[in-house]
Structures are given as structure tokens and as C-alpha cells.
């Protein structure tokens, strides 16, 4: 039982990270209808920036805020400069190819700029733990959960309580009508990409800070899990992304512990999950079915 609970907590800790990255994926999918395969590598680059800033004696929290800000601007620029020119209603694959290209390019750029040595982002949260009964609870896990809750709250406030949020939702719902009421859809798309990039930067930096070290490949597996989370939640639901992330994290932690066959090949689980969701329930748990009414 005690092992079960500690694995559960581990899973939630990981799930929070998957949820954050899935949130970023869903944010872009909702507004542009594309899957950003470069989401993980964008986060990787931002994580390197965080590390570089901390090397320059900037406190780690400030460093994360700084790189999230830079990621926001970079994300917006990527939408404007790389995505929008190739976007075509007739050929949605164009954008997918561009994001795949970015995946490779940003990874290589990161290696070129920051080298191949594993690096360490200083710990954001205390590394010790405390006990409730027999169960050992990592303070880091609680910290990650708090950050995810904070992110969700901010996103919810932005989307539901502000004019800009209403416009973001309008563009996601109906771009043509958005223009007809006077919304500059281009600005909203840039904003969506910027927000997603900033979310990714925070997620990447926090993972790197909880790990002993990170290298240029650390976001790739996380991205696979985030895809599974987003698929499970239904690609266009922010709530779904969070729930999906937590479910994937917990399922993975428990499977690794209790299913001997998965020992050593953990990524099989999210891939299998993606497959099952697509077969059984293509809209995921919270995704909207496209309903047309005349």
C-alpha cells in the first residue's frame, strides 16, 4: 500500500509536467488546428536559457520568468515568420512539416549554442520530503502541483474573464467571423503561440530543476507523454489536457512498478494509450465533436 501511494505521488509529479506541456499543445491546436511537434524543443531551448541565466548568477525563479518571457516573444515570432506564411487551407500538412523541421532545427541550434554536456538547473523547490503516516511526500511534487494549479488558474482567468481571452476563444471557434467583428486574428494567433511557448518554458525549466541533470534530448520523451495526455483529454480541451496529463503520469508510474513486461521500456505505455484513444474514442475524454447545424 505504501509503495502504491508513493508511486501514485510520483505519477502525479510527472503527470503535472505532462499536463503543462499538453496545455501548450492544446492551446496551439485550439487556435490554429495544428499539432506543434516542436513544442518540446522550444521548451528545451528555453530551459537552456534558464540554465544560462542561472550561470550568470540570476536567481532561478527570476531566470525562469526571464526565459518564459523570451519564449513568449519567440513563440509569437515563430507563428508570424515561420507558420503563417506556409499555412494553407488546402494543405494542412505544410505546417506539420514546418513544425517537424523546427523540431530538428531547434534541437541542433541548442546543441550548437549550449554544447552537448549535461547541465543542471538549480532546484526551485526544496529537495527534502516529509512523512504523513508511512508515506513519504516529496516537497518537489507539491511544488510542481502548485505551479500547475497556478498556471490553470491564470489561463482560466485570461480566457474566461478578459476581453483578450474572449477574442482568443472567438478566433479558435470561428476565424472568419472573428475578422468580421473586427478582431485581428493574426495578433491572436501570435498570442496563442506565445502563451504556449511560455508554458513550455516553465514546464521544461521546472523538470530540469527537479532532475539531477538535463541534456538536449530530455524534452523528447516528455513530448510523447504530453501527446498521449492531449489525445486522452481530446486535443481541443484545456481541462482535458490537465486530466489527461495526470492520468498518463499516474498510469505510467503504476505500470512501471506493477507491470513487469514494461520494465525498461516505459514509453510503450503512452504510445499504446494514444493508439487506444484514437481507436476507441477519437475525440478523447473532453474533446468536442464537430457538430454542424443548419
Amino acid at each position, binding site marked *: 500500500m505504501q509503495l502504491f501511494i508513493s508511486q501514485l505521488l510520483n505519477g502525479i509529479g510527472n503527470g503535472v509536467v505532462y499536463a503543462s506541456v499538453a496545455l501548450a499543445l492544446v492551446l496551439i491546436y485550439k487556435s490554429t488546428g495544428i499539432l506543434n511537434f516542436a513544442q518540446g524543443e522550444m521548451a528545451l531551448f528555453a530551459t537552456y536559457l534558464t540554465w544560462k541565466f542561472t550561470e550568470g548568477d540570476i536567481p532561478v525563479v527570476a531566470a525562469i520568468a526571464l526565459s518564459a518571457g523570451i519564449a513568449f516573444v519567440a513563440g509569437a515570432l515563430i507563428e508570424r515568420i515561420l507558420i503563417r506564411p506556409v499555412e494553407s487551407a488546402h494543405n494542412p500538412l505544410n505546417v506539420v512539416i514546418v513544425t517537424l523541421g523546427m523540431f530538428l532545427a531547434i534541437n541542433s541550434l541548442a546543441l550548437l549554442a549550449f554544447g552537448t554536456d549535461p547541465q543542471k538547473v538549480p532546484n526551485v523547490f526544496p529537495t527534502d520530503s516529509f512523512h504523513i503516516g508511512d508515506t513519504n511526500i516529496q516537497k518537489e511534487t507539491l511544488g510542481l502541483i502548485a505551479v500547475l494549479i497556478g498556471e490553470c488558474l491564470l489561463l482560466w482567468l485570461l480566457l474566461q474573464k478578459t476581453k483578450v481571452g474572449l477574442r482568443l476563444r472567438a478566433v479558435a*471557434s470561428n476565424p472568419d467571423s472573428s475578422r468580421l467583428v473586427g478582431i485581428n486574428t493574426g495578433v491572436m494567433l501570435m498570442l496563442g503561440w506565445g502563451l504556449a511557448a511560455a508554458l513550455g518554458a516553465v514546464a521544461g525549466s521546472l523538470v530540469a530543476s527537479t532532475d539531477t541533470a538535463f541534456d538536449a534530448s530530455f524534452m523528447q520523451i516528455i513530448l510523447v507523454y504530453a501527446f498521449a495526455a492531449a489525445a486522452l483529454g481530446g486535443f481541443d480541451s484545456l481541462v482535458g489536457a490537465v486530466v489527461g496529463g495526470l492520468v498518463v503520469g499516474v498510469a505510467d508510474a503504476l505500470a512501471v512498478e506493477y507491470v513487469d513486461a514494461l520494465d525498461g521500456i516505459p514509453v510503450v505505455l503512452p504510445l499504446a494509450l494514444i493508439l487506444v484513444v484514437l481507436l476507441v474514442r477519437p475525440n478523447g475524454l473532453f474533446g468536442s465533436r464537430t457538430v454542424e447545424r443548419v
Partner: protein
Amino acid sequence: MTERPLLELRAVEGGYGQVQVLRGVDVTVEEGKVVVILGANGAGKTTTLRAICGMVKAHGELRFDGQSLVGKPTQAIARMGIAHVPQGRGTFADLTVEDNLRLGATARRDNGIEADLARWYDAFPRLRDRRKQTAGSMSGGEQQMLALARAMMARPRLLLLDEPSLGLAPLVTRELFARLGELNTEEGLTVVVVEQNANLALDIGHWGYVLETGRIAVQGSAAELRENEAVRQAYLGF
């Protein structure tokens, strides 16, 4: 003294890619009037409205209140005071009714938005009942009312309506046109309406155009069009 028309199209050409739909359209819309555009499917009615809104590339002269619309992005044209209810109503289906209405006021900077919201809820009580529901969950008629109310939330100087009766029950269509007529007579709202239901449209219209293969074939006052043999046979059915 001749007043400057609110909207003026001169020799407007335009279309989609290689396909030219408009082959020189001339339309004049005086302030405070309802102008009806009739025509067969494919004649270019919808394209004409889309050209005004900058949703298709157009050449020629398009002027709104003296300002050229050519080359302007759709959102800028909307902000000049042109509200367009597109074919299929263009509601934000997965947003609530109230969100839809608030989005109508996107371009406004004044503080009369809440009052207008109350006003359109009074005008269309069904919308108030359903303000927390998603627009897509409503019937076609309710959505058309929502689309009209949303357009009015912008306090437009010119309202463009593309086939508002499409898919609506006759009774609902009648009510819709009655509302439009009221908006025109009571508030002087200028309207351009593309409509298959020529009878209803000409009832509230002052002036009408008949489009044929991208050109204006016939124009005249609503009364004149009713008398026109060709128009009667093709669009009025008697």
C-alpha cells in the same frame, strides 16, 4: 444637393483564385436605405458582399463613406462600421450566446455596451433565456436572431445580410424581415440584403439590383422591380 452615398461600388471585379465571379458590379447604397440584391445561384451575390468586407480580392472602386475599401483587411473594414452576417449566420458555435453578443461589440470603445446588451435581450427575449447556452445548441431561427443582434451590437453604419432566410421556417423568416424593417424605419439603419425570398426582401427594400453572371442586369426601385416581367418570373414566381 446630392448626398454622397454611404456605399459605392464601381466596376468591381473579383473572385476566387483563377475564377472570376464579379465582372464589373456597380452598386450604390444611400444612407438609411434598404438595398436588395437578387440573382440566381452563382450570379455573384455572396461574392459581392464578401468583396465589400475584404474577404475576397476585389479590383475596381469600393468606397464606404468616401473611403476606399480596396486592399483593407476584413477586421479594419469591420471597424469602419460595416457589420456582415454571412451565409450560415457565422455564429461562434461553441461560445455562449452572451459571449457572441459581446464579441459583436469588439470594435467599440464607448461604455454603452452593457446597455446595448440589455436592449437586444429585450428585443429578442429568447436570447436572454439562453444567454449561458452555446450558440450552436440553438435552432437555426434563434441563431439567425443571435447573428442579427450580434451585428447590431457593433452599432454598425451599414449592415450586410447574406441570405438570412436560408434554412428558416417561413414564419421565422417573416419575423426576421419585420425586425429588419423596423430597424430601418425606426433607426435609419442602412442595409444591404442578399435574398432568395425576393417578396419579403422587396417588401422592406427601397432599391434593388439583379445580378446575372457577375454583372448588374436590372436595377430599380422595389416597386419597379415588382413590375418588371423578367424579375417577376424569375424571382417572384407570378
